[in-house]
């Protein structure tokens, strides 16, 4: 059995969470955003500057016929949109090339991360949850534990889980049986090592099994959990783990999630993801893995 600490020993082989993301996370947590600080981060990162200008000149933010430079784009987009762009650009690097151990195609784990971010934000807005941006961040980071599991176990990871798969068992139960831990717990510990706030780590920890009762119940966890299931239904980041997950009954009830609403969330999430990919020029088609 592998202890979480053993798995995280390999952490040096994973990219660190950039300092800029830490600063942005702090801004999200206390509800403030500093355009000047974001501009400073962007100016030192060519890819990020390009992304901000692509957004700033995108039809998603209204057409004007004018071409906006970096500073104008930053002002035009505003703090919240900028925070998301910086997160997408920076966190994407963590997921770069990951997912093979889960039978995913290159880029799929990242698509699932962005899809989860979008779905969590949409659900939060629909339910007037005041921390939609935090939901976006947690939805994006929810599966970082998969990066650590893949880094530690390599392609042997799924073979060990497959050997314990039985009908009706969740993927988490199979992981627990194989390793004595599972990717959500590992992800939460990874987030803490990165210095992220405990609440964000808990949103990662509980993204498959959110606590129903106080203490421990937090609507943030419910929303991130629901977003994860929406992503599965939208066909995002479905690996060898398939659909071996459960939607917590209390989340279904509390969010009033029925089939019609679920289908609406699926199409909205997928549509927004596609718009984003078209704007960023990132193709959903992936390099085939042998």
């Amino acid at each position, binding site marked *: 059995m592998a202890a979480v600490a053993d798995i995280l020993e390999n952490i040096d082989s994973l990219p660190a969470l950039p300092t800029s993301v830490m600063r942005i996370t702090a801004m999200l947590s206390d509800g403030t955003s500093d355009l000047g600080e974001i501009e400073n981060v962007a100016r030192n990162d060519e890819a990020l500057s390009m992304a901000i200008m692509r957004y700033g000149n995108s039809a998603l933010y209204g057409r004007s016929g004018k071409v906006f430079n970096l500073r104008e784009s930053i002002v035009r987009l505003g703090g919240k949109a900028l925070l998301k762009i910086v997160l997408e650009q920076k966190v994407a690097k963590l997921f770069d090339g990951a997912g093979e151990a889960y*039978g*995913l*195609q290159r880029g*799929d784990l990242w698509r699932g991360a962005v899809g989860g971010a979008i779905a969590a934000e949409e659900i939060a807005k629909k339910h007037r949850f005041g921390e939609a941006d935090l939901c976006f961040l947690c939805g994006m980071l929810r599966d970082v534990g998969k990066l650590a599991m893949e880094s530690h176990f390599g392609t042997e990871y*799924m073979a060990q889980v*497959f050997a314990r*798969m039985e009908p*009706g068992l*969740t993927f988490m139960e199979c992981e627990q049986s194989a390793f004595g831990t599972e990717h959500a717990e590992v992800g939460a510990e990874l987030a803490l090592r990165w210095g992220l706030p405990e609440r964000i780590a808990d949103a990662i920890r509980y993204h498959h099994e959110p606590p129903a009762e106080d203490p421990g119940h937090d609507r943030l966890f419910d929303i991130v959990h629901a977003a994860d*299931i929406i992503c*599965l*239904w*939208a*066909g*995002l*980041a*479905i*690996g*060898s*783990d*398939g*659909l*071996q*997950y*459960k*939607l917590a009954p209390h989340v*279904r009830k509390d969010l009033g999630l*029925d*089939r*019609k609403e*679920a*289908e*609406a969330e*699926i*199409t909205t999430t*997928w*549509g927004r993801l*596609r718009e984003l990919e078209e704007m960023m020029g990132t*193709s*959903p*088609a*992936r*390099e*085939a893995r042998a």
Partner: protein
Amino acid sequence: MGSPAATYTGTEVGDKIVVGVADLAVTGDPSTTLVTYALGSCIGVTLYDPIAKVAGMLHFMLPNSKLNADKAKALPAMFADTGVPMLFKAVYELGAEKRRLIVCAVGGAEVLADDGHFKIGSRNRTFLRKIFWKNNILLSGDDTGGSISRTLSLVTADGTVVVRHKGKERVLWPQ
């Protein structure tokens, strides 16, 4: 102006044409293979005419386009009721004939303990079967249900349909 299906091409990756989610592709090129990854509750439909050597694949997400008319207009391959007719028309345009078509369906899985609340995968299966039943189309291969993910490929040279799950391959057609 070409048919609406002409806007869908899949994506060429090496000797494969990758069909994404809410996507379809048709081809008469015998050197290629159509493939779609990560079929969960979504369903992949394959068509193959062994005489015309024409192949087509659809990866739809949800059964009924009435859910979102705007989305259906922009992305008809997202829904069974708009994507399936489009797939058939697209293979006919390449010379395929209905009476010769070999039709397979793969996917339609369900999350665990759904307890009948959502049934996203099973509704996809039911809706697809209704469409086929109304149009006198028989399935030659059917690998749907469960809670697993599947990768589906169709070899254009001979129509072989392969389903990959947990790293193992199974030929769905010919049986």
